[in-house]
């Protein structure tokens, strides 16, 4: 894109085409960020929107920001989000049912009102003149930004640096848990377990005694009931244990039924059992 084009009041057809196509993608991405039930999906949609925005930055002559948007935002920040999503529980799907009375209506109403107001504001403003960034980017976008940052905005830049350090320290402080006593050694833990008399052997592994061996599926006890001990504590607390004990039996029953249907055997009626029970009485 030449400087001439950027300075024009109207964009080139190519840019217009790009705007309408990618703009639609951005809006769809934003909407799915809001309305996807799983946080992972929201994060991915948001990443898509951000990439679209990066393209728009480039289209508007902000080459440095466009790249930074992709590298830092989409690459680093969104990955941080995903990381936390994994930590909190990737499979947990939110219920979209509203619990606060009138919250959704108020939110939509104020959102709509705010949007209309913004649109009205932009429409009212006579934004006909577009100087374009050609002049400013004459010596290169990065050089232009650098000369501004290190001259006019140098104090803001320094303070932002301080802010980043503070944020890093703050994050550490927030997530740090002070250990008030010495961590127990392996030996002490074993002794404690023996003293308490519970689960002296190692905890059973999940799924090993059943058909499944996924970590979120509880192993079955000899009587066929699932044992929560086999699942890791984190999953237990999230309530993400899948119970397959009845599933297996149901599958078995269905299989037997199908086999009997195929063999055209008559069903053993429970009524006969009942009758014999009554007779025995």
């Amino acid at each position: 894109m030449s400087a001439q084009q950027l300075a024009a009041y109207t964009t080139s057809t190519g840019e217009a085409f790009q705007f309408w196509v990618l703009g639609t993608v951005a809006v769809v991405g934003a909407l799915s960020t809001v309305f996807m039930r799983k946080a992972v999906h929201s994060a991915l949609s948001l990443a898509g929107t951000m990439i679209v925005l990066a393209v728009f930055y480039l289209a508007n002559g902000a080459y440095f920001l466009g790249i930074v948007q992709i590298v830092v935002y989409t690459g680093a920040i969104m990955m941080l989000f995903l990381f936390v999503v994994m930590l909190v529980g990737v499979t947990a799907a939110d219920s979209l049912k509203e619990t606060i009375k009138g919250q959704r209506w108020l939110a939509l109403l104020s959102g709509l009102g705010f949007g209309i107001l913004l649109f009205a504001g932009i429409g009212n403003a006579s934004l006909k003149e577009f100087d374009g960034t050609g002049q400013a980017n004459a010596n290169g976008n990065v050089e232009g930004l650098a000369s501004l940052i290190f001259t006019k905005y140098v104090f803001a830049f320094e303070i932002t640096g301080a802010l980043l350090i503070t944020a890093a320290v703050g994050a550490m402080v927030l997530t740090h848990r002070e250990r008030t006593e010495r961590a127990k050694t392996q030996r002490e833990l074993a002794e404690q377990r023996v003293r308490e008399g519970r689960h002296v052997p190692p905890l059973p592994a999940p799924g090993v005694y059943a058909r499944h061996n996924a970590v979120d599926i509880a192993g079955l006890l000899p009587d066929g009931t699932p044992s929560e001990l086999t699942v890791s504590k984190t999953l237990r607390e999230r309530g993400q244990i899948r119970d397959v004990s009845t599933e297996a039996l149901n599958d078995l029953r269905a299989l037997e039924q199908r086999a009997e249907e195929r063999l055209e055997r008559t069903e053993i009626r429970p009524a006969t059992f009942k009758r014999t029970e009554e007779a025995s009485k």
Partner: protein
Amino acid sequence: MEKLIALLIAAPLLGAAVLLVGGRRLDRVGHWIGTLLSTASFVIGLVLFAGLLGRNAEHRTLIQHLWTWVPVESFQADVTFRLDQLSMTFVLLITGVGSLIHLYSVGYMAHDERRRRFFGYLNLFLAAMLLLVLADNYLLLYVGWEGVGLASYLLIGFWQHKPSAATAAKKAFLVNRVGDVGLSIAIMLLFTTFGTFAFGPVLDHAGSASEGKLTAIALMLLLAACGKSAQVPLQSWLGDAMEGPTPVSALIHAATMVTAGVYLIVRSAAVFNAAPDAQLVVTVVGAVTLLFGAIVGCAKDDIKKALAGSTMSQIGYMVLAAGLGPVGYVFAIMHLVTHGFFKAGLFLGAGSVMHGMNDEVDMRKYGGLRTYMPVTFVTFGLGYLAIIGFPGLSGFFSKDKIIEAAFAKGGTEGWILGGAALLGAAITAFYMTRVMLMTFFGEERWRSRPTRSPEAPSAEPAAEHQGEHAEPHPHESPKVMTIPMIVLAVGSVFGGAFFSVGDRFLHWLEPVTGHSEGDSPLSAATVTGATMVCLVAGVAIAWAQYGRKPVPAVAPRGSLLTRAARRDLYQDDLNHVVLVRGGEHLTRSLVYVDHTLVDGVVNGTAAGFGGLSGRLRRLQNGFARSYAVSMFGGAALLVAATLLMRAV
């Protein structure tokens, strides 16, 4: 010679301090210390008196400046004493009669275990009263005035274990406070009017102030005098004050306290002279009180209360005389002095009778005591003759002059005031004769029990232990009590004559109070004659009622007036209805207003805010998203406002 003045006050004050601070160690000698210091004060007074007599009439005013008390810009209060003829008269009366009462109390209070304290209070009383009459400015006078109030409170309520005594002391104190308000307002008015409250400048320039201001000051002074001197409408405390020991009654009635009001009026003569309206009020108060007290005195069966009524009445005479202006000032003071003699004698006599009758005060349970206590009978009888104005005795001279002066007021007022004074003289003769007859004559009503104990004198200690129901054994009081009575009786007999012959008292006091001869519509002889007629009539009626017929031991129901008089002419009921009830209603209405209006507003505001908060609280539901909606809505409104402003 001026330097002795402070010693007058210092002696009894020292006594009070020593006796009250000294503690139990002084129990055995305390009463003699008190009596000694009181007498010392009297001796100093005599020395000063002699000194004054040695001077010309114009130079008989001694000023002793001790120190400046409140030196604040134009507000200068000095501790300065002024001894002139008026003060001198009071000093001699107070210390003289006071010392006799001290002496009497030695005997009267012999069995009281708190006798030392009693003498301390007596000395304090004397010191305060002396300060009152010796002060050279109104502020210092006020100190003495309050000191008298305090001492009277302590002494009236001396037997504080009796609820009636405690109540009486409180009543006296409170009623006196009403008068004190008058005095303090008067002092403030004096200061704003004259810029000072020293006697000299104020009284010299009294005429320069406007009459309205002077009337206001005079009326406030009158209010103060009414409080201290038990004049209508502040008379109610005096009767109840009889709850105190009898020597206290004698002291209050004869030498201190009630005379303070008369002193105040006579001392402020210049102010009153310039305010004729106030003077008229003073005479009216005096006339009303003299009749009021006399009527009350007629109906009381309690010997001390009958005498209290009499005091009120006699002080009424003095106030009446003082209200008459220069015509009456001298006679007011003269009557005050003679009254001091005979009333002290009468009270001490009454105390002596009570002393011999197991502290019985009901005259209906006396009778025929003249043979049992001859000295008391004679001294009391001389006091009686003096007070009714028997010719030749002191009351005759002083009271006669007052009645004469009342007529000399002139016009209708003169006739009314003179008539009231004459009527008062008749009633005085009646009730005093009644007291005399019921106490010393007639049958021995105290022997009401049929079983007479044969051994009269030896059973005395036993009778004391048996309490009130034991039959009394009347006996003469010890010498320490009779001697003061005899001295006072001598004063009652010869005092008036001594003062009046050659107008000694008039010449003595005239330089201070001034004097003018009134032109009476009646000649002196006519007035004296009328007074004699009234006197004889009063005595005759009393004799007809109480001398010829036996006195019933239980009081008959009596006429409407008698019943009213027994209840002090409903003074307490009036106070109760007007002040207590009024106060209660005011309080209740204030409580009602407080509860409904004030509390209503306060509680209503609180409830309003409470209700509002209860509703607003729902907005604070703790959900961050709710808050975010409010924030977002607010932001939207801000954007809208911005756009609107731009559009406008």
